[in-house]
């Protein structure tokens, strides 16, 4: 099985769905029944529950359409493409579309709606295509499958449970994604104009913005960032981090506080940590790191301390000669000291107070100065 890039999934266990319109090929109750049965396949093996709504916004919107239908991915007439669906998220994300140029049927004389809906709704929940021909999430429609006997394959079950856990586990089980933290008076507000960040790192295609005990988790696919307690993902990590970076070549995020650093792979803390920052080659005069960023192209990590920076070669696992150097000499336009930094789209984004500096490492210049929370579309 596979999940979508960035592993998008629903951050709640109760989801709403809405059937936006109906095909003329089937009675309405046959469509409703096919969708309900398809969702119940996934409901049986996860903590997820579904309820139907007939008006307003729903997490999963289901519609029948032909050719161009407003999402830039037109259907192709009878045959070939039967449907498509979007991974979890707001708006169109999570929605499932069915090509109404197919002949939808309850049996297998035409295209069985239940079989296709069960597959598409697997996408709506976050599963990508499986390479296992026995799996429901295999991309090719199998007209020989008996809809009455359809069961999820072991591969489908393993896939969906990798996202949501099994129905029997308690909400405290780490397999179940933590619920987002509701904002309260004591929690930082994403759109506070004076907001500053402790540390920022990418993680498997997402961006994590750390502040005190919390972090915002921003996927480039979604507008709204998730907001979580650090301890809900990584119980062994401290709060109030100084710096963080992702070594994408190792799929590890390193986080720093004081003279120690930790390593996590996904939600798993790595054994052997915390370690002293001096094992990286810093002199004893360095007591803490302000910010760190891994350069994916050069496989080097930049550590920012006060108005200077060090460069660490991840291949040789050693601090490079000739450092520290002054930040202002090699990153002109960036303020003297930085709170946090990460790399995205080939740029370095430096954060200082409520400001952010987009730095082009090839042109060696700041290309834009931004509010630091513009990633949250404030």
């Amino acid at each position: 099985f596979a999940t979508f890039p960035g592993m998008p999934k629903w951050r709640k266990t109760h989801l709403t769905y809405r059937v936006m319109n109906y095909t003329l090929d089937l009675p309405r109750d046959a469509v409703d029944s096919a969708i309900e049965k398809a969702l119940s396949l996934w409901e049986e093996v996860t903590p997820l529950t579904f309820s139907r709504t007939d008006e307003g916004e729903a997490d999963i919107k289901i519609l029948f359409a032909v050719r161009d239908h407003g999402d830039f991915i037109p259907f192709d007439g009878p045959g070939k493409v039967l449907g498509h669906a979007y991974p979890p998220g707001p708006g169109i994300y999570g929605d499932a579309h069915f090509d109404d140029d197919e002949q939808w049927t309850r049996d297998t004389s035409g295209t069985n709606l239940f079989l296709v809906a069960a597959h598409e709704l697997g996408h709506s929940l976050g599963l990508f295509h499986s390479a296992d021909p026995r799996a429901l999430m295999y991309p090719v429609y199998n007209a020989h499958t008996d809809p009455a006997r359809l069961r999820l394959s072991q591969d489908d079950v393993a896939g969906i449970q990798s996202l949501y856990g099994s129905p029997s586990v308690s909400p405290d089980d780490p397999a179940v994604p933590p619920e987002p933290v509701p904002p309260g008076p004591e929690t930082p507000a994403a759109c506070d104009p004076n907001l500053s960040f402790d540390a920022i790192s990418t993680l498997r295609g997402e961006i994590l913005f750390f502040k005190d005990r919390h972090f915002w988790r921003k996927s480039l696919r979604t507008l709204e960032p998730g907001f979580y307690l650090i301890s809900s993902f990584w119980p062994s990590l401290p709060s109030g981090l100084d710096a963080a970076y992702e070594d994408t070549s190792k799929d590890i995020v390193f986080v720093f506080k004081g003279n120690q650093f930790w390593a996590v792979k996904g939600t798993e803390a790595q054994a052997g940590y915390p370690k002293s920052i001096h094992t990286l080659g810093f002199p004893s005069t360095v007591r803490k790191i302000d910010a760190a960023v891994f350069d994916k192209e050069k496989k080097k990590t930049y550590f920012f301390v006060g108005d200077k920076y060090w460069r660490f070669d991840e291949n040789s696992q050693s601090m490079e000669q000739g450092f520290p150097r002054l930040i202002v000499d090699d990153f002109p336009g960036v303020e003297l000291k930085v709170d946090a930094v990460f790399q995205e789209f080939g740029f370095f984004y430096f954060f200082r107070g409520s400001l952010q500096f987009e730095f082009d490492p090839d042109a060696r210049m700041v290309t834009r100065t931004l509010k630091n929370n513009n990633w949250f579309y404030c």
Partner: protein
Amino acid sequence: YPLNGAARKEGSTTDFVQQYLERYYNLAKDTKAFVRRRDGGPVVDKLREMQKFLGLEVTGKLDSDTLDMMHKPRCGVPDVGD
């Protein structure tokens, strides 16, 4: 110039294969499926990727099993991510 039947058939199959690989296997849009290269080129690589993913014999060639599979009804979500 009107094409003869055979050429038209070959052309339409090539276009179909190219579109299929572009849509589901991220074949670059400007790839020329007709261009023969010693190393096989991107179309052959993508055919192999498709054959491997869908559990077919991996030949890198547009054999009848591969073409049949491409004509089967399927989900519109690509098989490989960006």
